[in-house]
């Protein structure tokens, strides 16, 4: 410990700055595991089940109305849904708030083209072990989780595009 303390402060701060600058997004491919099935009510009252989408590529996006990057990402996901839905692709938005009032208000102001489900009890968030906001999971036509994105930073949509096209072609 003493050795560490004797390292000059400016060196340590430089090292810390380097590490911060080198850090990047945690966006990983994941081992093929089956995406947990769930049934949730959507904002327009219908019950939607994930297994009903078997055969299609699904992009599941966990979001909350109080989360800035989530709001930033929504129009991009809406465009993505519009663009590829005819090729067997769908975006499923899952709002994780206990009280859906703010989410409904946001969707009223900024409507999206994809179904939005309400996870009021956080059961699906727990099933998918959501540790970041927003979180995006890409599920292939066989119902397996293939890509996971934690968080959203502008430019991530390039990766979404690439991965969605790849999964559609399978």
């Amino acid at each position, binding site marked *: 410990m003493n050795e560490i303390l004797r390292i000059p*402060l400016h060196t340590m701060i430089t090292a810390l700055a380097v590490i911060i600058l080198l850090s990047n997004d*945690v966006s990983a491919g994941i081992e093929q595991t089956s995406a947990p099935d769930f049934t949730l009510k959507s904002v327009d009252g219908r019950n939607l089940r994930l297994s009903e989408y078997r055969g299609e590529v699904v992009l599941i996006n966990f979001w909350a109305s109080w989360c*800035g990057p989530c709001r930033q990402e929504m129009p991009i996901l809406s465009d993505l849904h519009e663009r590829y839905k005819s090729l067997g692709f769908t975006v499923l938005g899952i709002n994780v708030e206990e009280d859906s009032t703010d989410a409904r208000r946001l969707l009223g102001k900024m409507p999206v083209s994809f179904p939005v489900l309400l996870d009021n009890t956080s059961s699906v968030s727990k099933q998918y072990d959501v540790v970041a906001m927003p979180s995006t999971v890409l599920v292939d036509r066989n119902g397996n989780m293939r890509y996971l994105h934690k968080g959203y*930073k*502008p430019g991530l949509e390039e990766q979404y595009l690439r991965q969605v096209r790849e999964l559609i072609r399978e």
Partner: protein
Amino acid sequence: MPVAPKAAVVAAVAVTRALVVVLLCVCLPSRAGVLPDDRADALYHSYDGGDVEITGPSVLILKKIGQNVALSGNYYVDSISSASIDVVTSGASKYSEDRTELSAGVDYMHGNSIMSLSYTNSDEDDYEGNTASFGVKMDMFGNMTTVSLGYAYGWDTVKNNTDSTFSEDIDRQNYRLGLSQVLSKDLVMELDLETITDEGFLNNPYRSVRYLDPGSALGYSFQSEVYPSTRTSNAAAIRSIYYLPYRASVSAEYRFFDDTWDITAHNIKLAYVHTLPGGWLLEGRYRYYTQTAADFYSDLFPFRDAQNFLARDKELSKFHSNTVGATVSYDFIENGSKYIDRGSINLSYDHIMFDYDDFRDIRNTAVTAGTEPLYDFTSDVVQVFLSIWF
């Protein structure tokens, strides 16, 4: 640098060093931080108390440029009209003055941290202040913890309206360390440490001290105040805020302060925030402050040149103050229009009661020197402001 202040600076560096070690040894999950939302605020402030009136605007603009950079600018003015006890007892008449302050800042977000740079300049007839600061803020542990480090360098010029040849400098350094920790889904705690060192002409060129002088009509005479040319201070604050299930919160804060002039101060602040349907927010607050005197302070020195350092500034005397205040805010744009996400108008009032334990009201000249009543006064502080998020 003198020996005593150097010890405090070494301590601050050691604390910073320890924190950097902690940061290097733990995981830095690489997730993006978030720049604050764009906003513009226009505030009108008014202070009225102790025969001093100060009013003026404060305008702030914060705007993101691109995705990773945010710029901010602030324009602030104090229009001062003062016939305070200090002014009146020094034989001067009521004076008016304007102090203008301009700041500009830039925030750069990378990964899970935000780096900030800012510059502030304040200008009045007889005083010019400059401060340049640098800060880093990092979110860690799944954004449960935020650590911030800051350093600021200041350089001021002190002038004298009655003597155009007078010009002295002050150099200042601030070292800041902050830690914000989410303890539960309803509880957040924050710890702040700050060390400040000043060097230069630290007193007021117009102010005097008084000493017993049997030969004079009043029983006392005046001489210019003499301050040490250095000062190092340390402040440590802990604050917490707790969410109440009906969209309200309660918060508490305690700050400890001490410095090389032997001043020790404590203050506590309690606040309760309550929201009402329709976009209303109410806050009620209470603050208590107490401090001991600087070791070179005296309301009445026994004779001329009684000490190397002499001060009679009530700011350095033993006193306490109580503040009660409230704020009412109304969100007039709740659902957001095309250009504006949210807007609120706010009215805030604080009533501060100052009580001096060793500073006498010498406007009262009918009594023996040293038996004048102790001074106290109250201030009314009003703020009216408009905030827009876009």
